[in-house]
């Protein structure tokens, strides 16, 4: 099973996990790290290193971050290692809910799948409605 680490600005990651657990039940092998202005870069790197160890079950680790270019993402990129650790930004609740269903995939497939799944699950309601009406 691929280990998952959610690194975000503030408590977004913890809250996302809580929301996902509310819907889907307990999530194993998923941890969150909060990046806030009071933590220094070195301190955060240590926290990430130890969390990677905790969630890694030998099948690699996927880091989910909120914003490409933000500190959580920038720090995560320094841990990038193809086949061992992948980083996907733009984490959302649909992604989290899908995690337990596909975690037996290998890391690379898993990372691609989660990225595409997160994208696919952003919708504009009226667009969907209009499509449905127009195809009838």
């Amino acid at each position: 099973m691929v280990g998952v680490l959610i690194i975000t600005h503030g408590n977004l990651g913890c809250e996302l996990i809580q929301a996902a657990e509310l819907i889907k039940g307990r999530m194993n092998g998923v941890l969150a790290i909060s990046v806030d202005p009071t933590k220094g870069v070195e301190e955060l790197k240590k926290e990430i290193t130890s969390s990677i160890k905790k969630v890694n079950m030998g099948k690699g680790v996927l880091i989910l971050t909120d914003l490409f270019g933000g500190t959580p993402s920038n720090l995560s990129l320094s841990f990038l290692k193809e086949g061992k650790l992948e980083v996907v930004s733009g984490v959302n609740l649909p992604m989290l809910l899908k995690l337990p269903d596909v975690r037996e995939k290998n890391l690379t497939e898993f990372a691609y799948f989660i990225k595409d799944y997160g994208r696919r699950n952003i919708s504009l309601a009226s667009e969907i409605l209009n499509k449905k009406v127009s195809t009838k």
Partner: protein
Amino acid sequence: MDISLVRIDDRLVHGQILEAWLPFIKASCIVVADDDVASDFFRKSVIKMVVPSDIEVIVNSIEEFSTNYSYDEKEGKKTIVLFHDICNAIKAYSLGFKFEKLNIGHVQSEEDRKYCSPAVHLCKKDIEKLQFLVDSGVEVELRCVPRDKPLNFRDMRKKIMLP
């Protein structure tokens, strides 16, 4: 280049720069003046990768930056200049990059440092260094994001209990 913001930020390019300062200033160029990053291919690549492609990114050593650009020129691209710490900003200033305003964004707590704001911890020595810039006519402000109320140098001294 038109220098619109000179900032001390130990995170260099991050969310606040890309999402708050860049649109606020309408800057089209970001300079990272930092010896460590300039000599680190990976960190340099990450910075270039995360900045939107319509924004020019210049990563230079402090010396290279301070001696290679003409600062008198007020025209050209609106530019944000980032330094990792106060010492680096002073080094650039001494080498000829005479900025008029300095924004303190992120300086993180180490030993002996006192709380100024959630993102800024300074020690007495930092204040002395900043005093050098203030005495040279630089306007120093502490402000994390554009919408924050800025703290001036005197307020900063008060925050860390200096008269």
